[in-house]
């Protein structure tokens, strides 16, 4: 069903470890460029919003954090699906490492949103559809991490966690459409695939750069964490011995 060359490459922890070390410097370089431009653009270059004044600058970390939190979850769920269908070890590692990063982005989205809500809505928190569904996302991540830490280390653990990740994906469309389905305090989407963005280019470009920076940051931390996990899982294998022989000599 799966071609052998594909299996040899994508199912191999060794291939992943070696390829990722070539990829990481490029990711770090791209991240630095996007992050520095995004910070400068968001904090200094973009004009203040005519309604929200300078408080709107919170958008440059809030929206990327929320988007990344959802993107990380979808990657986690897709990895979970691959764990269930193909029993891929690398997918199980990707799933677990993603959860540990995604929970931070969700936390950041919730807290920065709260800090934005205080001056704009007059309240830190409200039980509104968007806020509540993102809180559910946070608890899904936490639930995954707790489940992963209490189960014994075997393939059953990976499958149980994968089921949780896949089932929880129902929450993603709820988050996305919550501002449309329900009457909510949260403002509507700023950028949409299907319509022209309701934001000026001088404000939009730093936002896109920040979104790219956050996704790249996730990529960097994900690869680093996955590489650590691979080292621990493969500690007894021959290729690790070869990889590290020069360090010991």
């Amino acid at each position, binding site marked *: 069903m799966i071609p052998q060359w594909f299996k040899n490459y994508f199912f191999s922890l060794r291939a992943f470890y070696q390829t990722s070390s070539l990829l990481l410097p490029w990711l770090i370089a791209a991240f630095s460029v996007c992050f520095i431009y995004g910070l400068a653009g968001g904090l200094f270059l973009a004009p203040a919003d005519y309604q929200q004044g300078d*408080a709107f600058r919170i958008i440059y970390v809030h929206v990327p954090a929320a988007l990344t939190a959802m993107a990380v979850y979808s990657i986690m769920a897709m990895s979970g699906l691959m764990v269930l269908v193909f029993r891929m070890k690398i997918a199980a590692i990707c799933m677990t490492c993603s959860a540990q990063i995604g929970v931070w982005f969700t936390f950041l989205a919730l807290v920065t949103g709260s800090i934005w809500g205080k001056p704009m809505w007059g309240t830190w928190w409200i039980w509104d559809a968007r806020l509540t569904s993102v809180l559910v996302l946070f608890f899904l991540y936490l639930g995954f991490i707790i489940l992963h830490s209490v189960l014994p280390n075997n393939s059953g653990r990976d499958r149980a966690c994968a089921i949780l990740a896949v089932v929880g994906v129902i929450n993603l469309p709820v988050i996305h459409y919550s501002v449309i389905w329900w009457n909510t305090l949260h403002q509507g989407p700023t950028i949409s695939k299907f319509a022209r963005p309701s934001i000026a280019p001088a404000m939009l470009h730093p936002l896109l750069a920040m979104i790219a920076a956050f996704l790249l940051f996730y990529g960097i931390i994900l690869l680093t964490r996955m590489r650590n996990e691979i080292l621990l899982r493969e500690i007894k294998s021959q290729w690790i011995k070869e990889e590290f022989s020069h360090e010991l000599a």
Partner: protein
Amino acid sequence: MNLHDILHMGGYAAYVWTTYALTLLVFGINIFASLREKTRAKNKIRQFLMSTNES
């Protein structure tokens, strides 16, 4: 835009700067945690390889 305007953030300084400081903190925590893990993993491998070499 002068330095005062930047620091003042139109009266929203406390909110805006807290948000950005928090973001840097979260990024820092993630970098620190992943690098600490890396050191630990490499130390474990070093120990394991040393023990197999001796025996």
